[in-house]
């Protein structure tokens, strides 16, 4: 088992620095590192696994486009990728208006990975892109994995866990004890499913994004934005009166400052918190990918294999750092979500803590009442 894992690790480390795809045209274009990097971290309508000298292995994902007035169009993205259908249908590819724009099919065209219609009408792009296919894949992986673990818990009741179950149990217990119980308090069980799903979703997708030929899912700002909005919605729906009181009538604030405090608190709760969650995860993961890709691009900029050892060494170091960042960002996202939810469900007990004893000027001091002996 250990040898198998070592072999797998060596293969992934080797193949992770995948070669550039062979140019479709005959002419040699100058290497544009910015374009290569953006192409690798961005979304795409095809899933390009890898290329060898003579072949390319690409999965052409379906394009699903809705145009008001023309209805739904569903077809393979092979028809819109330049050069993918050269030998099959010369008549269709002859419709190209410019060489660089790509073939047109049913009045639709891919303009820099964006679906546009040739007559300028609005197009709603509902396609299964690379990120969405990766989302399905990783969701399936999580479903299968955690159903298996849950089944193991039912089967092995009263016995010690083994195998996959024993790997995930400390992590799940850590989330329950250190993150949920500490931040949310006694009502933590209601939120455990969401927190666990969030943690493992972010962690698995961060890790999967580092593998060769993978889709950069958590580096897609739409995905992280959705997660942040989910956190916001759960926080708002589980907020009790104390929470709204803290926003609209922050205790300890003199009345004159309230016109400033209320907008600040509202912006903090509704805008800054989801935005910071979104940007933090998106930027961390994307920046890591950009750094690794930049080191690879160095080899092509200098056009010499002598740069390769340095490039590989730095790239390896950054990749190991990215492994840490993967789990750290998942933990931070989950921890902050738990803290926001905890802030929302907190019970009203602050007044005794923050009260200032007006007789002595000490906070929370124990003053014997005159009637006590």
């Amino acid at each position, binding site marked *: 088992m250990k040898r198998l894992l070592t072999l797998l690790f060596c293969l992934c480390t080797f193949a992770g620095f995948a070669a550039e795809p062979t140019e479709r045209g005959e002419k040699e274009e100058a290497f544009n590192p910015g374009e290569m990097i953006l192409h690798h971290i961005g979304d795409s309508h095809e899933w390009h696994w890898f290329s060898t000298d003579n072949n390319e292995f690409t999965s052409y994902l379906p394009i699903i486009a809705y145009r008001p007035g023309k209805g739904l169009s569903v077809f393979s993205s092979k028809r819109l990728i330049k050069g993918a259908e050269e030998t099959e249908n010369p008549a269709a590819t002859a419709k190209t208006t410019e060489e660089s724009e790509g073939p047109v099919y049913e009045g639709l065209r891919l303009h820099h990975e964006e679906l546009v219609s040739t007559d300028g009408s609005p197009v709603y792009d509902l396609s299964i892109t690379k990120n969405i296919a990766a989302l399905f894949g990783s969701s399936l992986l999580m479903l299968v994995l955690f159903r298996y673990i849950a089944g193991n818990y039912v089967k092995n009741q009263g016995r010690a866990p083994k195998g996959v179950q024993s790997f995930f149990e400390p992590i799940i217990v850590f989330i329950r004890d250190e993150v949920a119980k500490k931040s949310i308090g006694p009502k933590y069980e209601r939120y455990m499913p969401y927190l666990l799903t969030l943690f493992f979703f972010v962690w698995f997708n961060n890790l999967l994004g580092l593998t060769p030929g993978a889709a950069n899912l958590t580096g897609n700002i739409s995905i992280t934005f959705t997660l942040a909005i989910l956190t916001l919605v759960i926080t708002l729906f589980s907020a009790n009166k104390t929470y709204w009181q803290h926003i609209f009538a922050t205790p300890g604030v003199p009345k004159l400052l309230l016109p400033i405090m209320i907008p600040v608190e509202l912006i903090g709760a509704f805008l800054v918190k989801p935005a910071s969650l979104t*940007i933090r995860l998106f930027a961390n993961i994307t920046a890591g990918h950009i750094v690794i890709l930049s080191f690879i691009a160095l080899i092509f900029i200098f056009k010499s294999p002598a740069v390769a050892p340095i490039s590989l060494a730095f790239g390896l170091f950054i990749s190991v750092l990215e492994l840490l960042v993967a789990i750290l*960002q998942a933990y931070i996202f989950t921890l902050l979500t738990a803290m926001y939810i905890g802030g929302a469900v907190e019970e009203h007990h602050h007044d005794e803590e923050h009260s200032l004893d007006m007789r002595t000027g000490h906070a929370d001091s124990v003053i014997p009442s005159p009637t006590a002996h």
Partner: protein
Amino acid sequence: MLLSLLLQIANATGLAVFGAAIGAGLVALGAGLGIGRIGGQAMEAIGRQPEASGKIQTAMLIVAALIEGLALFAVVVCLLISFKL
């Protein structure tokens, strides 16, 4: 002489991209200072009380991630400028 070289570069690629590059460097500086300070204080605290090293390490990582989040806000802005979005 260095100043005239910088001005030449700024003129060539455009002042906005030049500003974005300087901004990103400054952000890296700020984040490095912040996280370095946190790390230093964490080391001191662990040296002072080795039994609490687990808690200190956890807290240090959390704060480092928050500071890094802030730094990446600024990096995203610089990237947006340099890709003219």
